[in-house]
């Protein structure tokens, strides 16, 4: 698949914006519409767009890590954020909150960590499928 120059130039800008927006969505999710799931989908969309504009190899390089790793790490973070409560003797997945909000991020909590886990799993799974499909298509 050969990308058009217009799409490629636009994508460079769009991808940045989409990724920023996805993180924004993730962080604001607790109080405004958004959250890890939609954030993850947005980020996946950003890389899928990149893939369409260039090719799979370029998109993989842009992502830097294997999507499979993202899936594993995401699940691990989500599970670990739940397990954190066990250490202080609360039931599994009880949200723990840091007392003071951090500027720009907001209140830090295990709930946020859990949402980050969701975000990573969604990005990872979506890109795993998209990239692999695209590679099958290229080789076939």
């Amino acid at each position, binding site marked *: 698949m050969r990308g058009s120059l217009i799409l490629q130039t636009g994508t460079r800008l769009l991808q940045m914006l989409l990724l920023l927006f996805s993180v924004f*969505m993730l962080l604001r*999710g*607790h*109080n*405004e*519409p*958004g*959250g*890890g*799931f*939609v954030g993850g*989908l*947005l980020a*996946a*969309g950003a890389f*899928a767009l990149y893939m*369409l504009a260039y090719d799979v190899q370029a998109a993989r390089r842009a992502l830097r890590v294997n999507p*499979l790793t993202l*899936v*594993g790490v*995401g*699940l691990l973070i*989500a*599970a670990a954020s*739940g397990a954190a409560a066990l250490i202080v003797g609360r039931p*599994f*997945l009880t*949200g723990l*909150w840091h007392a003071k909000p951090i500027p720009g991020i907001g*209140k830090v*909590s295990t*709930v946020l960590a*859990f*949402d980050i*886990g*969701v975000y990573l*799993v*969604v990005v*990872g*799974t*979506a890109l*795993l*499928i*998209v990239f*692999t*499909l*695209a*590679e*099958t*298509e290229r*080789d*076939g």
Partner: protein
Amino acid sequence: MADTMVICVFLPFLVALVAPAVARMLGRRSGWLLALVPAGIFVSFWRSLPIAPGETHTWRIPWVPDLGVELAFLADGLSTTFAILITGIGALVLIYAGDYLAGDRRLGRFYGFILAFMGSMLGVVLADNVVTLFVFWELTSVCSYMLIGFNNETETGRASALKALIVTGAGGLLLLAGLILMMIAGEQLGLSSADAGRISALTTVDLRGHELYPAIFALLVLGCVTKSAQVPFHFWLPAAMAGPTPVSAYLHSATMVKAGIYLLARMHPILGDTWLWTNVVTAFGLVTMLVGAIATLGQKDLKRILAYSTIAVLGTLVMLIGVGTEMAVKTAVVYLVAHAFYKASLFMVAGNIDHETGTRDVTVLGGLRRLMPFTAAAGLLAALSKAGAPPMFGFIGKELLYTTKLSIESVGAYLVIAAVIANVALVASALMVSVKPFLGRSRPTPKKAHEATVAMVVGPVLLAFLGLARGLYPEPFENNLGSAAASAILGENVTMKLKLWHGVDPVAMAVLGLSLLTLAVGFGVYTMVKTRLEPIGRAMHRLEAIGPGRAYELSLEGLYRGAGWFTQIIQSGYLRHYLLATLAVAVAVVASPLVRGLREISGLPVGSWRVHEVVVAALAMGGGVLAATLRSRLAAVAALGTTGVAVALLFVLFSAPDLAMTQMVAEALTVILLVLVFYHLPRVVPRSRWGSRVRDLGLAIAVGVVMSVLVLTVATIQPDLAVSEYFLAQSGPAAHGRNVVNVILVDFRAMDTLGEITVLAVAGLGVFALLRLRLSRRKEEVS
């Protein structure tokens, strides 16, 4: 003793884990080191001797106390006899295997499995709780599966292992049912739930009078006769020859097939001495004895001769336990031990011949006594014991057998005739495996024959001499293990007296006469059969074609065919068929309660229609209709996208921004995915046949109607808002978030979300694996 007993059961399992590493480091010499494990256990049991009749050692801890399940072990005369055989012969087999499998990279695996098998077998004979017993019983089946299928690269190896597993595994299931029924009956007879699961406690109640007795009896006996290869379940044992010889030596002498004998003996004080027991068990044994013994005559393969003779001996043992008199039980104990000695020895001898000459075919073997003097000595001595010639231990066993048969009044004469026939065949087969290969003139063999190594000679020689020593000097056995084992089987204390020479009373003379007659006729049969192995073998082969082994194969084939036929029906491999089935079932399931509650949709919220709502709805519907009618795939996807966006708009209109956003992004990704998938589909979209299109249209309309009615019904239901209100109220104060949707997702019901992302990850992995599989296959084709 009690504590060491538990260590003895679990030690082989632990060592099994490190055995592969040991084998890798030490190679063929690892046998000598690993043999220290069974040898140590052997010594620990040996040191607990002498054991008096009725003496027991127990050890137990609760496991599932509510169900009467405990990890319980008990050592009495019977268990100890078995434990000593299992570990003693086990040690010799381990030493033997080191050289037999020398240089084989699978040696470590072999040691691991055979040690685990040893532990399982020890568990079976020492278990005092029915569940403990069952667990170890099944473990022996699993381990023997791995051992018989050791040559897993060959078709026969795998099929034989599966055969053994299916037959003994099916028996194991029946046994489990029998054991559970026994527990239930025990509790009904007034035992506590712990006692009802305890084998030693079950002897205190009278299960024979319980109404469940026939069922318990049938299930337990089926479990035992499948394990002990009784006709008609015997066919797995000759097939199990596919395993390496050390496995056969161990399986046939002290373990596996003896587990069934052990359990029958163990159950005798609980279930024995009834009309059912005496007749059914004896009949199983009698038929098996005759079939096994006669089948030995048609075999050319050393191991197959031995396998059928094992079946004959197992039959004899089952028959003796079935008869169940004091004399019969004592005979069974002697016969059991004598058989363990000579059968292990003979199998190792056969292994040596196979290993050093390259063939097991008796018709081409001869004159090996000069080349393999030690193996020949062991073979001849063991065969004498097998043939029941004086002064071997086997001779005492056979004398006792005849005496027992003569002592039964009504049918004794028939049993004697049957026993003589069987023993004549055993004598002939004993000569076939030991005289034929070693005596006579030497013949050329595939390999240049020479004596086997020390490790491979020590076992058979030692066991063969034990058979001789026990025969000449039986006192240490009779006053000790023999009496204690017989007492455990009978459930009352008895003492045993063994003699080679019984003096000149009429019964003893008659028995001696029978023994000599057996030997003489056996020799005659041997000389007759020796030269006619080919035609007899062919006749036997024709008989096998209509035997139970064939029935097993046919039913297995039928199962495969049936499963294939059924799978083809429900698994067409076409997504449209799955979709059809899924949607049809969903419609049926959802529609039936809806139809019943249809009148409830009376208070429909019919409001005024606003223009933009109508536009969005028209967009959604138009997209759907277009997607169904367009002939170009890309256009259809675009049309579907229209519907998706329209739905997202609906979400916006009804103030669900989270949903709208997610829907939009998901819609975008779906289009990308679909476009990628298109590359794998044929370019032209063929129209389906008219009939199936009508069917699909009908289903589509049904789905649409049902969904609409469902949504309308939901809209009229007043839901219980307690949970929603709780979430709304607590979202801020308890979960520090104003977006309730997200708070529910990541906090209130985070466990669900964790489950969902796990499913998502697994689904992604599945897609990845499937695509990768295709990718790599295609690469293979290219290269």
